[in-house]
């Protein structure tokens, strides 16, 4: 039953924020509901990992619709974690912007609905229903992307909706063909588990068509190159806490749907799901690495880094084998905590300077030490410097690839990661430590941008610290329960 509570709690919160009770109520309800969801999910994860009986968690009558296993619980856990830190961050960040109460209420209602749509993805067992909630994530977040109602934000939201839904149209066709494949194989129930069971008897051509359509269709929303064009726009124009959710975990929760197809495809004759994943993943990492070098906007920088990391995850899955799968799972974890931290830091830099142009920000560490330090820490972490979480997971993936004998793929992946490292760090280094070229002091340079402030909201700084804990911790030590959860999740990628 707790699964249903976890998914529906944000809906309740969305309804509650509509009660006209003032600012504290609106923000308080959102934060409390997110934190409660995090606790419930942690408890659920514990029971799934150590209870050995995931089926008993659900009423039998629901089993055709809902299912939880290691992989879905892992995604759930990090959706709720990022949602909680982003909600705490937003308390100070959003109220700092002198928005009306009505706009804030709209923001919180939309935010909670968006979280609901993401939470529904990993727990639904019926693929077409999963497709519907994937559509809902786009529709619930569209108005969050366009929240500032500027020309750029509206353009970003429009591109986001049109391209995501276009991809979803292709994916819908894929899901219907997959149903036909399952039907032709005599599959009794159209669920992920039922599909895995029916896979050996499926007509290969149907399942291959379905896989490619879903990979391309949902890959659009994951941000895989060449379908990524909307992503840097949407992930940079949205308010920073929303960026943290979009980049940190929404992309991953859509990637989860593609990962569900991997064990099905392993049983289909002549299917090359791994090769497709490897090629598409490497293209994404490579393109993103070079695009990172020429960005002009530091929120777009982190958005391109998301394309890179989605590529790394897909490459890891494509490498095959349980070690690479474990690496992919750990990459999901480290990316979601690190990327959300990066967008929190970018949001603070934006508050402090009032501009998103990389070229306009110099010497941030001297003027606003908190924002400067956070930005450089976030940059080092996401680029993969030791001893942070991303470093460890990338190392695991490269190691697994080498032991599998994929030397060329590993060499390319390592080269792209290094290029991306320099791309990220060159830009951030100049922003944080650089001096402005025209000789004027940093202070004067920054003051020219209206809207900048040096007092950063307390709750946002608190969220920054909360988000930094796992970034540091998972780089040096993976707690035993998390290790067991990651192993379970990785096992879901093979038959």
């Amino acid at each position, binding site marked *: 039953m707790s699964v249903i509570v976890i998914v529906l709690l944000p809906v309740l919160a969305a309804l509650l924020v509509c009660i006209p009770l003032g600012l504290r109520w609106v923000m308080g309800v959102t934060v409390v509901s997110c934190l409660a969801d995090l606790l419930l999910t942690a408890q659920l994860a514990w029971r799934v990992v150590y209870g050995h009986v995931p089926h008993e968690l659900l009423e039998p009558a629901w089993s055709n619709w809902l299912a939880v296993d290691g992989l879905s619980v892992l995604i759930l856990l990090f959706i709720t974690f990022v949602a909680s830190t982003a909600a705490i961050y937003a308390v100070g960040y959003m109220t700092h912007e002198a928005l009306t109460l009505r706009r804030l209420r709209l923001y919180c209602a939309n935010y909670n609905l968006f979280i609901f749509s993401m939470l529904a993805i990993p727990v639904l067992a019926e693929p077409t229903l999963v497709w519907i909630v994937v559509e809902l994530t786009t529709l619930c977040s*569209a108005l969050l992307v366009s929240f500032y109602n500027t020309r750029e934000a509206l353009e970003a939201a429009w591109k986001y909706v049109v391209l995501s839904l276009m991809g979803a149209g292709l994916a819908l066709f894929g899901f219907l063909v997959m149903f036909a494949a399952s039907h032709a194989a005599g599959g009794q129930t159209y669920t992920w588990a039922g599909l895995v069971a029916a896979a050996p008897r499926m007509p290969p051509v149907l399942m291959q068509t379905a896989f490619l359509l879903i990979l391309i269709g949902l890959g659009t929303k994951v941000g895989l190159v060449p379908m990524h064009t909307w992503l840097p726009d949407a992930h940079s124009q949205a308010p920073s806490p929303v960026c943290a959710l979009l980049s940190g975990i929404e992309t991953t929760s859509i990637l989860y749907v593609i990962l569900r197809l991997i064990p099905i495809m392993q049983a289909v004759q002549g299917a090359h799901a791994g090769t497709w994943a490897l090629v598409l993943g490497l293209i994404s990492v490579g393109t993103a690495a070079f695009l990172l070098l020429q960005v002009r906007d530091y929120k777009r920088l982190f958005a391109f880094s998301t394309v890179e990391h989605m590529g790394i995850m897909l490459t890891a899955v494509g490498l095959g084998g349980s070690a690479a799968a474990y690496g992919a799972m750990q990459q999901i974890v480290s990316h979601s905590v690190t990327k959300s931290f990066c967008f929190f830091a970018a949001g603070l830099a934006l508050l402090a300077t009032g501009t998103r142009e990389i070229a306009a920000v110099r010497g941030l560490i001297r003027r606003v030490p908190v924002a400067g330090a956070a930005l450089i820490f976030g940059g080092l972490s996401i680029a993969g410097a030791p001893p942070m979480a991303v470093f460890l997971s990338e190392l695991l993936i490269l190691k697994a690839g080498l032991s599998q004998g994929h030397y060329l793929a590993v060499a390319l992946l390592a080269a792209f990661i290094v290029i991306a490292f320099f791309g990220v760090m060159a830009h951030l280094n100049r922003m944080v430590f650089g001096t402005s070229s025209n000789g004027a002091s940093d202070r004067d340079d920054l003051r020219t941008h209206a809207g900048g402030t040096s007092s950063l909201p307390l709750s946002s700084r608190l969220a920054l610290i909360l988000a930094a804990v796992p970034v540091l911790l998972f780089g040096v030590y993976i707690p035993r329960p998390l290790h067991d959860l990651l192993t379970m999740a990785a096992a879901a990628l093979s038959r």
Partner: protein
Amino acid sequence: MNDATQQLLQNLNALATGLFLLTAFGIVAVRQANACLNLFIVQSLLLAASAALLGLRYGTSHLYGVALVNLISKPIIVPWLLRKTSPAGIYTRREIDQVLDIPISLTIALALVIAAYFVGAPIANAVSAAYRGPNVPIGIAVLLLGAFTLTVRREALPLLIGLLVMENGAFLTGISIARDLGMLVELAIATDGLIIVFIMGVLVRAVQKQVGTTAVGALASLKETATRPETDEASS
């Protein structure tokens, strides 16, 4: 049901799907935004007709439900939602500056249909005979034509219709090869289509208020290389 009736139903279904394809061509070609909407309504009626005919032919009663959902949601609720949310101007817009002119668009559309037949053939061969029919290739063709509409149009309404046409195309194949999909799922997908219309209507209204145009596809200020005006998120 005797053979002659079955044959008649199959022929009628072929007619409905043929006309369905024709409406998709129309949506690619017509310039008047309002005409696009009308063609889309006709297309949805033809989808409902195809569902009902297949339901009758194969005795699958829940296809009547699919037909009914399509009859109510697309011709009635979609135009109503559009009137409620989006600015009135979107209907009267004529698109002069399409990316490609009409003869070229139609030639590419024709090529897409031929490609769809080749893509559809292996799928149709893989399902059992009862699930075959004109629905498979035509569904794929209309899916591709919808995607094509999205790439060549700039006005809000034709873009929105392009998305819904893609969904119609997927559905036309769906009622043939995945006809045992549950009613709950069909209803959910129909509701989803309505949410698309609502959200996009709201976005178009905001764009028109802020930028003064409904040619949302032509917005292009977010780029990596071009210098763009300073945007000020924190103080807006």
